């Protein structure tokens, strides 16, 4: 029987009630008395020198309070980058400045040039149109290969080229990898594009700056996944505001998917301007602004080679990747194609030798940073596509080829630094074969063919490194931050509990799932526990939510803090029952003395802690509140196997996803309903990447061609099927107290190769010798491949 509360129960989400009744409190729902509104005048050219900005006419327009330009920010720091990558030669990456408002040059369409603050949003927008900007247009650098040519225009004049870094991993293995290729029985090579995407949370970004003259405190309300990270970056590096004078609030946030991790110029602007004009300043992004100012994702061009011996064992992998950074380094951009990508190139397989080369490139495009999966989808896609191609070339079953090469013994030291603590890849593949009814595929293919359609089956595996991240390790790899998290458990006098957490929920259901853990530990009702998140003035210093880390890292901190609570509560209970602390047991919310019928209730102990009339004050402090910080000792390694079945219409090239099945190993599960929902959402985004989505730039002018939902194809309800998901194959994480691995990104990481493998399978079944089609696998690309 499924549990009805605590760990393992599909508790209904308590946050749903406010969202379903229109009572959510998103940042744009906040209005502060006296607030002014800002509209950003953004560059409409990809690359140019600012000759002049004439704000005279605009300044005289109705309602205009003040117009800011780059000159107003000369004394202010630029937006910082939080990760320094060291290149193959031991040199630090190129790290250009990133001003809040453009200074001297504009470097991508959407680069902010000026900011108009006015009494109303309409007045600010109207006045922005009256600003006269003269820009000397420069050649735009768009294509990454062209950007690295010697005669390419330079995005940053103060850098010697458009190369950010040339990274080799593991550099010491390069010669051995090359030698393995020289002696391989078979080599499969694939060149592919991992298409540029836009995260597109449905809530556009919003920022409200507020300044209190009385106290000298600044407050920023913002759509962020990590308010403390924003406070640290903006306060310490951009505006010079000490933490105790800066509060960052991220209330209900309407999705993030990575794009709301980063510190953005608009946040710094609103905070700065609110103090400058002594009025709250609000900015609400339009969707088209979001397309040209939210950090984009993916955008890799890769050549991967897989070497096999005569028995089809993988012997080596070698990759060369160009990774687009865009015009500036977004907060965590350099880490994505390197430490979140190269370290996953072993996949689920015991390939002994791996070498990964990544050249990160500046172009006149929007900055690129982490998007759901971040580096791991890029690794998974190329690996699982090249394995599929190898199986086809060798004439072997793609599932059997994978199984033959699975890692089966744990812990497993990969040749790319990370150590997988646990897993069972055959178990998830067995489960996949069951839930996807792979045995029944032939009959379904025959049925499709009978109606003139081609049917394909694509299978792949994935592994990810989640629970980000051990601070000592990432520090050595260039992270400029620790990646622990924190929780404070505040037990109130009457026994209710507030848990203040560093993680931020923007759809993940922490407000429901986190109390399930505490309730299980204490044996009290979930409804007595409330999660507080998203306000730096209320929560301990935690690093927020991304990288499928919330439960594995912040949840572990919460467990540790709750353990401290239990230890102290047992001391109090022992005193109340005049027993030895060692004999106290806590079960079902009751403290008992082992071997006796003595007991006191949870509420008796909590009341005693706050009304310490009969209390050992000489031994124990009053109160019942504990904080714990948790820094993981390793990443977690969720893994699984996915299968996609598509139908292809040979007349039009249209691909329809008929079935999608996902067998995941997330370790232990706290709320199965929420976990399934996370997988569903990831699958929707992965299918979107594979079939629909593409952020396109004009290769000559650098104009953003997909800047609205008219041009950027988001997956819709009728683009996807019902999914079959399963997470019963659980090998609990060995190094965190809950044994959890994280589930937020798996669907987006694991699904694109399954879709493309399925399309190729369908075309091959129709007699077409198509080896690869780049994503998105649109009808026109499929039709062109078929009619070549």
């Amino acid at each position: 029987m499924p549990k009805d509360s605590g760990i393992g129960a599909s508790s209904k989400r308590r946050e749903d009630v406010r969202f379903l009744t229109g009572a959510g409190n998103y940042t744009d729902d906040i209005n502060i008395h006296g607030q002014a509104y800002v509209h950003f005048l953004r560059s409409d050219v990809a690359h140019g020198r600012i000759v002049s900005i004439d704000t005279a006419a605009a300044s005289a327009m109705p309602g205009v309070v003040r117009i800011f330009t780059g000159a107003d920010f000369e004394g202010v720091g630029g937006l910082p980058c939080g990760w320094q990558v060291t290149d193959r030669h031991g040199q630090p990456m190129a790290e250009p400045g990133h001003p809040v408002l453009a200074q001297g040059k504009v470097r991508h369409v959407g680069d902010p040039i000026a900011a108009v603050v006015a009494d109303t949003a309409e007045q600010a927008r109207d006045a922005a149109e009256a600003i006269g900007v003269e820009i000397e247009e420069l050649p735009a650098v768009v294509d990454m290969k062209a950007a690295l040519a010697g005669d390419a225009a330079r995005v940053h004049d103060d850098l010697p080229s458009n190369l950010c870094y040339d990274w080799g991993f593991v550099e010491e293995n390069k010669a051995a990898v090359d030698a393995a290729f020289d002696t391989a029985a078979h080599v499969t090579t694939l060149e592919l594009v991992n298409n540029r995407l836009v995260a597109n949370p449905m809530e556009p970004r919003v920022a409200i700056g507020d300044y209190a003259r009385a106290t000298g405190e600044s407050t920023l309300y913002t759509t962020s996944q990590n308010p403390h990270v924003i406070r640290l970056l903006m306060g310490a590096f951009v505006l010079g505001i000490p933490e105790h004078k800066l509060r960052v609030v991220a209330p209900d946030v309407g999705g993030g998917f990575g794009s709301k991790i980063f510190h953005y110029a608009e946040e710094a602007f609103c905070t700065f301007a609110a103090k400058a004009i002594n009025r709250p300043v609000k900015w609400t992004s339009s969707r088209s602004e979001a397309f040209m100012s939210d950090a984009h994702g993916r955008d890799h061009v890769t050549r991967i080679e897989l070497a096999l011996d005569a028995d089809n064992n993988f012997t080596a992998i070698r990759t060369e990747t160009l990774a687009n950074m865009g015009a500036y380094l977004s907060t965590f951009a350099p880490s994505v194609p390197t430490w979140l990508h190269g370290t996953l190139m072993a996949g689920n397989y015991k390939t002994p030798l791996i070498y990964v080369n990544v050249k990160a490139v500046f172009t006149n495009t929007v900055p690129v940073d982490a998007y759901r999966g971040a580096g791991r989808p890029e690794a998974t896609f190329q690996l699982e596509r090249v394995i599929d191609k190898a199986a086809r070339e060798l004439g072997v079953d793609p599932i059997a080829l994978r199984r033959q090469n699975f890692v089966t013994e744990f812990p497993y030291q990969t040749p790319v630094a990370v150590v997988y603590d646990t897993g069972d890849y055959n178990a998830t593949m067995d489960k996949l074969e069951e839930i996807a009814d792979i045995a029944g595929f032939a009959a379904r293919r025959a049925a499709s063919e009978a109606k003139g359609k081609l049917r394909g089956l694509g299978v792949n595996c994935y592994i990810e490194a989640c629970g980000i991240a051990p601070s000592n390790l990432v520090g050595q790899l260039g992270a400029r931050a620790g990646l622990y998290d924190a929780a404070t458990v505040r037990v109130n006098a009457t026994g209710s509990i507030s848990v203040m957490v560093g993680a931020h929920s923007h759809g993940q259901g922490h407000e429901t799932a986190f109390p399930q853990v505490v309730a299980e530990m204490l044996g009290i009702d979930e409804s007595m526990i409330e999660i507080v998140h998203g306000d730096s003035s209320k929560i301990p210093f935690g690093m927020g939510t991304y990288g499928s880390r919330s439960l594995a890292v912040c949840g572990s901190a919460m467990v540790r803090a709750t353990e401290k609570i239990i230890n102290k509560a047992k001391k109090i209970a022992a005193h109340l029952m005049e027993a030895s602390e060692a004999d106290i047991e806590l079960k079902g919310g009751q403290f008992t003395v082992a071997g006796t019928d003595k007991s006191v209730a949870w509420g008796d102990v909590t009341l005693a802690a706050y009304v310490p009339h009969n209390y050992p004050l000489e031994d124990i402090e009053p109160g019942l509140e504990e904080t714990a910080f948790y820094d993981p000792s390793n990443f977690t390694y969720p893994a699984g196997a996915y299968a996609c079945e598509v139908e292809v219409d040979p007349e039009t090239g249209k691909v329809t996803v008929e079935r999608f099945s996902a067998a995941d190993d997330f370790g232990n599960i706290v709320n199965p309903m929420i976990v399934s929902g996370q997988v569903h959402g990831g699958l929707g985004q992965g299918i979107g990447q594979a079939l629909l989505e593409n952020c396109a730039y004009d290769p000559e002018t650098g104009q953003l061609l997909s800047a609205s939902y008219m041009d950027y194809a988001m997956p819709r309800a009728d683009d996807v099927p019902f999914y079959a998901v399963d997470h019963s194959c659980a090998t609990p994480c060995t190094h965190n107290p809950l044994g959890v691995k994280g589930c937020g990104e798996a669907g987006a990481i694991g699904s694109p190769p399954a879709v493309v493998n399925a399309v190729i399978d369908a075309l091959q079944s129709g007699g077409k010798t198509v080896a690869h089609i780049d994503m998105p696998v649109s009808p026109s690309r499929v039709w062109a491949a078929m009619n070549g």
Partner: protein
Amino acid sequence: MPQISMTVNGRAVSGEVEGRTLLSTFLRDHLSLTGTHVGCDTGQCGACVVHVDGVAVKSCNMLAAEASGSSVGTIEGQAAADGTLNALQQAFQDHHGLQCGFCTPGMVMSAAALLKDNPRPSEAEVRAHLEGNLCRCTGYHNIVKAVLAASGQDVSGIAAE
């Protein structure tokens, strides 16, 4: 500036707006009914769907002045006065049909319009009807399931967890 008046969730309201003021802006900024969300500027995302005289309308695609004299229903008017969720809202909670909640008001209002006209829609009809409502969190699985469940159909055969 035009003077407008309408009924919103059964309450008579009026206001003075610029001619260009959208119905979504009027609801959010003038009436503080912030449950209606704006997620795009091209009429694609559907987060702003409300009912105008019983018809589902994208309120960012309608001028406030156009709605003058109409009866408007928003997400804030869907639950009972005591806060009890209606059947469709309850189905969204029961089947985890929402995550971040931003698209949810539009989804509920759009789905409610479907069920009014088509009380027992097929899966394909639900998906086709919701084509104008984008959700980035759920992959649509549990939204479609919730709408089917709200129509009284048995959804136990649809992969649950």
